[in-house]
């Protein structure tokens, strides 16, 4: 019983990375109507920037995270402003292909700059150590991840529900033309939303640096999980992204305990079941 509770907590911390990743993907899709295939690569970039600032240059951890978010936001800005913007009216397939081109570019660019070897920077001192949870040692850092994830969830919710910017975003998500007609600067707003989504992915990547491996392949691995989460939760739905991340996170934590060989398979199985019963996802309209 205790191991189940403990493993649940592990799953929760995994779920938080996934939530940060999937939330950005789903927001960008919900507002811009573009599925960003390269979203996982932005996650990877976040991890690499955090590694550079914090692990290589010794910048303070609390400064390194926002710095890496800003750097990835700049990459997001370039992607949207100079490329994606030109194909909003086109078929979805071309948008996918375009963002796919960015995966190839970003993955190889990372190899060029940082090399192909995986990197693991040291844990910031104040997060070292463990606390006792149901009699087992649980890393302090995981507790930090869980609280950070929940904090961001509340923050994103407040941003979209309570602020003027959030209202503008929701308005243009539901009717782009109408929102433009009443004076919302749609192109600028879209750039902002895309950069915001990129920053959420980067946050997931950056927070993972002290405990997860930073390697060129992590973006591609993450995007698959993000896709599964959004299929389960419903594409474009924030609540769905959160619940989907919780499901996938906990499942992989328990799965690795129960069926170590077929842990990944279990997640695909859940996705299949959801697809059979509710093809539009748990929270999809």
């Amino acid at each position, binding site marked *: 019983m205790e191991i189940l509770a403990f493993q649940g907590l592990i799953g929760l911390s995994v779920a938080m990375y996934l939530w940060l990743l999937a939330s950005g993907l789903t927001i960008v*899709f919900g507002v811009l109507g573009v599925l960003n295939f390269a979203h996982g690569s932005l996650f990877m970039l976040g991890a690499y920037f955090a590694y550079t600032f914090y692990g290589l240059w010794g910048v303070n951890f609390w400064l390194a995270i926002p710095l890496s978010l800003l750097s990835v936001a700049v990459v997001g800005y370039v992607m949207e402003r100079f490329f994606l913007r030109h194909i909003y009216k086109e078929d979805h397939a071309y948008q996918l292909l375009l963002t796919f*081109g960015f995966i*190839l570019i970003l993955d190889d660019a990372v190899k060029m700059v940082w090399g192909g070897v995986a990197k693991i920077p040291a844990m910031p001192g104040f997060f070292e150590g463990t606390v006792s949870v149901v009699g087992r040692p649980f890393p302090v850092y995981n507790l930090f991840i869980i609280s950070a994830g929940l904090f961001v969830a509340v923050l994103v919710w407040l941003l979209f529900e309570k602020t003027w910017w959030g209202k503008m975003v929701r308005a243009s998500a539901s009717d782009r033309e109408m929102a433009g007609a009443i004076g919302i600067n749609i192109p600028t707003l879209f750039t902002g939303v895309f950069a915001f989504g990129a920053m959420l992915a980067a946050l997931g990547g950056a927070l993972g640096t002290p405990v997860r491996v930073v390697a060129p392949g992590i973006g*591609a691995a993450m995007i*698959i999980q993000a*896709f599964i989460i959004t*299929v389960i939760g419903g594409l474009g739905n924030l609540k769905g992204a959160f619940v989907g991340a919780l499901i996938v996170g906990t499942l992989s934590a328990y799965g690795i305990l129960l069926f170590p060989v077929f842990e990944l*398979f279990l997640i*695909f199985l859940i996705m299949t079941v959801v697809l059979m019963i509710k093809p539009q996802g748990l929270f999809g309209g």
Partner: protein
Amino acid sequence: MKTRLAILSLIIFLAVLPAFAGKYLLYVTIHILLLSIFSLGFNLLFGYTGLLSFGQAGFYAVGAYGCAKILLAYPSLLAGIIGGVALAGVASLVLGILCIRHTRIYFSMLTLSFGMMIFSLAWKWRDMTGGDDGLVGIPRAPLEIPGLLRLNMAPMENYYYVVLVFSLLAIYLFHRLVHSPLGLTLQGIRDSETRTACVGISVRNYRLVSFTIAGMYAGLAGALLPPLESTVTPPVAHWSFSAEPVLATLLGGIYTFSGPIVGAFLFYVLKDIIVRFTQYWLICLGAIVLVLVLGFRGGVVSIFQGKGGRG
């Protein structure tokens, strides 16, 4: 008449190639032929039916692993290839039922995810697939029809002819297919799902047929691989490999019959040229993708046909 002459001379060229080409050139040509078959199948889904799949490597892998397993148990080339194609057909039929429940973006995400499911099986199911070591020591078994003929496949030239015959057959069948009522129905679905449904055609069933045939083409390309390489490893199931037919088709031209074949050729030529200068050839490929998507939607073939392709 001109096209026929061109095709005929191309076939003759390919037929006499072993007479003057070295081993490396034959090897690359075999790979170009495999990618052509693979891409043709992909384009049946994308160009003709309007479904963008990012999981075709999964079916390629089913064909490759299936053929390898058969060859390891029973060394007959035909049994391996046909078995591999059949297995890929079954896999794509089953997964197709799930995938075609969705179209557009969801379809792409689903094919990608299920493709990766096959990858995770190839990676983790050690007893069956050999895990990350893959299957090794696959014999290039003789082409044998009991009582009729038995051809030794050990020399590369002999195997090259087998691949060539299978490829030409696959391309010919594909040509018949897309110009048949079935092919026209698929294009109808691509252009307007509602209209096609309104004339009483079951859109889902036709999508499933298209998905299964595409899977079998991927399976054929996959099944022809293990006798050449004598190994199969999990990367053939990885989604970055699914990207190859996507890129080849995009390079050659989406809405044209010969696009994927021309694209497969260009893909290898480009790769060969770029890797001479830099190991980071994917970054160049990515840049090419950006240019193609933003500017030259019709690919190379449409440039020669003198039209910009569809918008």
